[in-house]
């Protein structure tokens, strides 16, 4: 019989089995739990974990390639970029902005309180970029890395200071400062060209953004780097020669100061290739320091402004006459009594020339002879010549914001438009267009498109072949030769005597035009545009030089007095520098020209037009008047001009009435 108190005999196998199964179950659950967790992490949270792991190990570094360099024709750098660094703070990474500000301010010698406020505000606004110091070069940044070395900083990159980082930047520098500033232009902080070549060639010069994927170890050392390859920006080589440019700028500056002019423009061009050797504006600016003060002088008036340049435009008038074979330079033409009436308007010469050869008529800048020539040419042929010479259309030079000037369409000409245009009014041209027209005559009638870029070279590559500048035969070589002979007389015996060179022959034309006053809608007889455009050596010109002075106030103020001496100084230096062989004797003695024939400006003979008159014909026109008289429009057709005492002296011998069709003086874009 079984004793109930006696414990049952345990089945040890069963116990062992149960225990074993418990252990197995435990392990199964344990491993199962781990497996489930692993599956969960690796399947459902795969992307997040991967991103986190990569974040801990890798970082993406963005850097912009250095902007391309601009060189002159002799490989002198005119604009170049440098690597600089910006130290910035990420306040969200700073535990205590006040303490951080104290430390940063101590190293950089900044105002700690101000910096602390700035960081605190940025932290509250969750801003992650607070620039502290900009444009630091490598040497300074390395010194700052050492200064900011903090032991408790847990970050892979330098500086070892929580919340402080470096950003790679670049800084544009213009080593020659104001030299060729209007040609080079400048770029902004974002590496975008704003003016000049910097703007027109921005696509070529602009550096691409390159990204590099860096993998770092736990000490922050980069052990693997993957850099995206991008094409490096190209360098631009200009036709400008910095030495010539400097000479031209110096001469222009001197000329502007001597004439007390508002501004001046000078263009030097190689007529055979169309290359611009120098292009200067004064006042100028330093592209390294653009301020609100200098911003008034940023416009490149040689291409961005259009002017009525007066008598220099007679080149086109005589070109069209010679091209039609209406006369030869030695043929005679009569200026009559010094006045001519065209469409009820009287045009007058500043000084009577009587009956002279065409050469002498141009030399003495006779308006009557020019108008007679234009009338004999006819409107159609004259308009065609204006167009062929390139007026009214852009020259195509590689500079931004070039204006085409203003040439009124043929069907909108008034009765006296032809006469006005024959002497350089009613038409607005850019200094470059006018230089190009003279270059056409210098180049035996072949117009070569002006260009300022010699070549574009990719970094470490071969220069890109630029398309050849278009060439057009505008006038025959014979016409060009005759015109050069006539222009030579201007310098030898005419209004351009002050342009005579030593050792070289020169040819050119003076121009003096009154400026249009946009406010009063009339010609301002107190403001001139004084011009001289010439070429040398006269028979086979190597250079064409244009000098334009805006509002000269000293002296006679006409082109022959103000601009011709600047031309002489520029041409004399440049021909010597370019090693052009002399073609005339070098004189040591000083010579005073026997007779000065300054090209007197037309004294307020241009009718002051009312706004209505500007838009059409049959409107009252004003003539020679005092400013007070100008206010009241009245019909003064064929009137004998009343002269104020102030004007009477000037207008005694030279009144002429030119209908100015109200084309604005400048056309800035």
């Amino acid at each position, binding site marked *: 019989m079984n004793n109930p108190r006696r414990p049952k005999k345990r089945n040890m196998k069963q116990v062992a089995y149960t225990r074993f199964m418990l252990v197995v179950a435990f392990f199964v659950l344990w491993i199962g739990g781990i497996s489930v967790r692993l599956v969960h992490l690796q399947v459902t949270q795969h992307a997040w974990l991967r991103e986190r792991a990569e974040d801990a190990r890798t970082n993406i570094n963005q850097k912009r390639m250095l902007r391309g360099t601009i060189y002159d024709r002799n490989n002198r750098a005119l604009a170049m970029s440098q*690597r600089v660094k910006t130290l910035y703070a990420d306040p969200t990474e700073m535990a205590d902005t006040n303490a951080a500000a104290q430390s940063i301010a101590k190293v950089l010698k900044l105002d700690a309180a101000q910096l602390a406020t700035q960081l605190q505000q940025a932290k509250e606004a969750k801003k992650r970029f607070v620039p502290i110091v900009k444009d630091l070069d490598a040497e300074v940044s390395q010194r700052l890395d050492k200064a900011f070395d903090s032991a408790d900083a847990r970050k892979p990159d330098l500086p070892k200071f929580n919340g402080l980082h470096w950003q790679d930047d670049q800084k544009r520098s213009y080593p020659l*400062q104001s030299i060729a500033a209007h040609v080079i232009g400048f770029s902004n902080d974002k590496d975008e060209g704003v003016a000049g070549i910097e703007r027109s060639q921005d696509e070529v010069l602009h550096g691409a953004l390159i990204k590099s994927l*860096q993998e770092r*170890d736990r000490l922050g050392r980069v052990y693997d780097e993957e850099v995206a390859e991008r094409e490096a920006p190209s360098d631009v080589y200009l036709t400008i020669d910095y030495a010539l440019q400097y000479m031209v700028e110096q001469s222009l500056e001197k000329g502007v100061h001597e004439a007390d002019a508002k501004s001046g423009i000078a263009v030097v061009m190689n007529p055979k290739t169309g290359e611009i050797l120098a292009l200067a504006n004064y006042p100028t600016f330093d592209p390294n320091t653009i301020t609100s003060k200098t911003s008034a002088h940023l416009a490149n008036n040689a291409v961005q402004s259009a002017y009525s340049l007066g008598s220099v435009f007679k080149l086109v008038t005589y070109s069209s006459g010679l091209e039609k074979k209406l006369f030869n330079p030695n043929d005679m033409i009569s200026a009559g009594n010094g006045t001519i009436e065209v469409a009820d308007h009287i045009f007058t010469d500043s000084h009577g020339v009587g009956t002279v050869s065409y050469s002498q008529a141009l030399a003495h800048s006779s308006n009557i002879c020019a108008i007679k020539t234009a009338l004999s040419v006819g409107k159609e042929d004259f308009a065609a010549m204006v167009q062929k010479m390139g007026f009214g259309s852009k020259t195509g030079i590689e500079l931004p914001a070039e204006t085409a000037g203003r040439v009124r369409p043929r069907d909108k000409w008034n009765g006296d438009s032809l006469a006005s245009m024959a002497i350089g009014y009613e038409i607005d041209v850019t200094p470059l267009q006018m230089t190009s027209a003279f270059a056409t005559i210098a180049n035996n009638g072949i117009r070569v498109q002006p260009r300022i870029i010699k070549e574009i070279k990719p970094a470490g590559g071969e220069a890109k072949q630029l398309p050849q500048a278009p060439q057009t035969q505008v006038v025959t070589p014979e016409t060009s030769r005759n015109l050069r002979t006539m222009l030579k007389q201007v310098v*030898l015996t005419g209004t351009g005597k002050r342009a005579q060179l*030593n050792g070289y022959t020169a040819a050119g034309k003076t121009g003096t035009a009154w400026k249009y006053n946009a406010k009063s809608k009339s010609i301002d007889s107190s403001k001139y545009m004084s011009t001289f455009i010439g070429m040398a050596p006269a028979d086979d010109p190597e250079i064409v030089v244009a000098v334009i002075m805006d509002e000269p106030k000293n002296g006679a103020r006409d082109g022959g007095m103000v601009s011709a001496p600047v031309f002489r100084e520029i041409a004399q230096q440049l021909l010597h520098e370019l090693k052009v062989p002399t073609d005339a004797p*070098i*004189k040591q003695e000083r010579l005073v020209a026997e007779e000065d024939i300054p090209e007197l400006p037309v004294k307020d003979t241009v009718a002051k037009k009312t706004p209505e008159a500007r838009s059409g014909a049959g409107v009252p026109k004003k003539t020679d008047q005092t400013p007070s008289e100008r206010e009241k429009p009245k019909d003064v057709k064929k009137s004998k001009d009343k002269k104020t005492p102030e004007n009477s002296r000037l207008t005694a*011998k030279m009144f002429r009435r030119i209908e100015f069709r109200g084309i604005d003086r400048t056309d800035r874009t």
Partner: protein
Amino acid sequence: MIKRNETQPLSAKRVSSTKRFTTYALILASTLTLASGFFFAATQHFSSMDYGMKNSRLRKQIEQLEAEKSRLMLAKEVSMSPNEIKKAAKKAGLFDPIPAPVMTQTAELVQTKTVPASSKSDQPLIVKTASVTTAAKPVTTAFNKSDKTGKEIKKTLSTE
């Protein structure tokens, strides 16, 4: 009669020890191969990391050298700019040359112009060195505006 091979157990023992030895040797070899493989892979890995670090350092160095090159180029260009040369010349005690007298060509009509005579002097007109002082006193030309007073100019104008 049952023939017993007395030597078989001994031989079997021998065989088994050889097998065992072979097995151990194979295991050892495999272990060694595996270990050396791991070792080799580790060496490769660390070497690759080392090269990566060196590469990164070299890249950085190239950047620094390029930055330095461009800094030096800029410094060279700045120092060679006309304004800096002027400053340096002034520091060295040189001064702006007095403008040389301007020579003008005799005005002559084209019709009367003959073949130009050969140059009598090869003296250059342009004084290029800042340190050269002009020997001659500047000649005041008739065209010089400073000589012409406003009155004279007005007179000239009124007579034309």
